[in-house]
């Protein structure tokens, strides 16, 4: 049975389908990574359109509270096994937005990040290196962020709720609309 697991991990490590959640300036580094200059497809990594299809959630840059809410929703729509890559110093310690009132500092407190890519901002080589590193982790069976998230869901949920209660829905509720009108 463990051979079968090794085999699936081997294949999973060679076929990462990526959902890039582009919030900040880090998105700029992705086009060269995808296209002819650095060509991430040679590692089996391709961008996907929806969370249902993706294996990796690549968070490129700072997360305001409202985008954190969407990120969590997107992450929960992905299918296990799934991995989160934190891209750039914004996801590690807030980066240049370390003292902003509506930007989170550590992504790790809200979602189980499997791998951080340090730098402000990381070069495409660093991104490719992270894919190779993640492949090694997956093959060894050590990238288990999605299981950690299920196991410690209360802790993550508490952290999420603490910051998300500061946000408001973007639209008014229908009954509020009618009341004001």
């Amino acid at each position, binding site marked *: 049975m463990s051979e079968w697991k090794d085999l699936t991990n081997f294949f*999973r490590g*060679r076929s990462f389908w990526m959902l890039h959640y582009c919030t900040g300036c880090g998105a700029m580094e992705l086009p060269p990574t995808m296209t*002819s200059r650095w060509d991430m497809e*040679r*590692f089996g990594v391709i961008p996907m*359109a929806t969370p249902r*299809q993706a294996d990796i959630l690549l968070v490129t840059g700072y997360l305001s509270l409202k985008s954190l809410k969407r990120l969590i929703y997107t992450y929960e729509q992905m*299918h296990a096994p799934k991995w989160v890559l934190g891209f750039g110093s914004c996801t590690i310690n807030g980066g240049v937005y370390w003292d902003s009132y509506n930007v989170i500092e550590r992504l790790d407190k809200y979602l189980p990040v499997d791998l951080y890519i340090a730098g402000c901002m990381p070069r495409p080589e660093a991104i490719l290196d992270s894919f190779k590193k993640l492949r090694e982790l997956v093959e060894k069976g050590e990238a288990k962020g999605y299981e950690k998230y299920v196991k410690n869901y209360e802790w993550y949920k508490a952290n999420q709720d603490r910051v998300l209660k500061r946000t408001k829905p973007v639209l008014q509720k229908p009954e509020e609309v009618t009341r004001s009108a």
Partner: protein
Amino acid sequence: MIFLKLLEGIGVGLLSLTVGLLFMGLARKITARIQRRYGPPVLQNFIDVFKLFSKQSISHGFAFDLGLVAGVSALLAAVVFLPMGQINLFPHNSSLIMIIYLMTMAYLGMAMGVSSSGNPNATIGVARALTMMMGYELPFAAVIFSVYIFAKTGSLTNIVAAQGGGFLNWNMVRLPFGFLAAEIALQGMLGEKPFDMAIAPAEIASGPMVELGGKYLGFGMLQHAVGIYLETGIMVDLFLGGASNIWIFVTKQFELFFIALLINAVLPRFKIEDGVKFMWKVPLLLGVIQALIVVL
């Protein structure tokens, strides 16, 4: 005897899946080379499919399950009727129209599955795919019926037999306009650019595939693989004189697929109504010219 046929049928199914996935891998590699990239391994699509089937997934109910399975199964049921080189399981049952209508079942299944998910993007994708289907089926039908009248038979086995005896007997040479029309229709059938509006990832989140994940997406990929095999196979039987053995058959299929690929790599996407209008202008005109030549 029946058991043998069953084994042969399953073998043909596996063959079509393998060849289709290999073609998809080659397509990625070749597209990468055209764009001056290194490209993924040729067997990348096998890796992807294996990964997808090992991934957990969500389903929206039994219609979702049934539809996706039907998408692959109906195409696999159709592929056994295709004469391919010396492999021809049912030589007396290879009516082309029947194969085309069996393929329709796969599209219906797929469309039912993805639409039952309740995502409007999927339905928009299906609506676009069906609209495009109406676009390319018209010239393709003109070509099919020209070939029918020309070869005086509607069975693929006999059409292949009628083209025996050298390159000059191929319908590609004898019916050049029809071949051109069918080539353009094939581009639409394969869903390659410029006719890939059904799966536009940036506009409608990859269309029909929007809610598919894990094994469901795996079934979608397998359907695409068998679809490529079947559609190029029909073209080989219709125009390239079939083949004497399976290796030549696959090579001819790949030639047709390669042309489609090159066009795919350099062209942008049509708007949906422009795609249909294009199909009803150029290829249809070619098909009609061919039909006129055949009838008169």
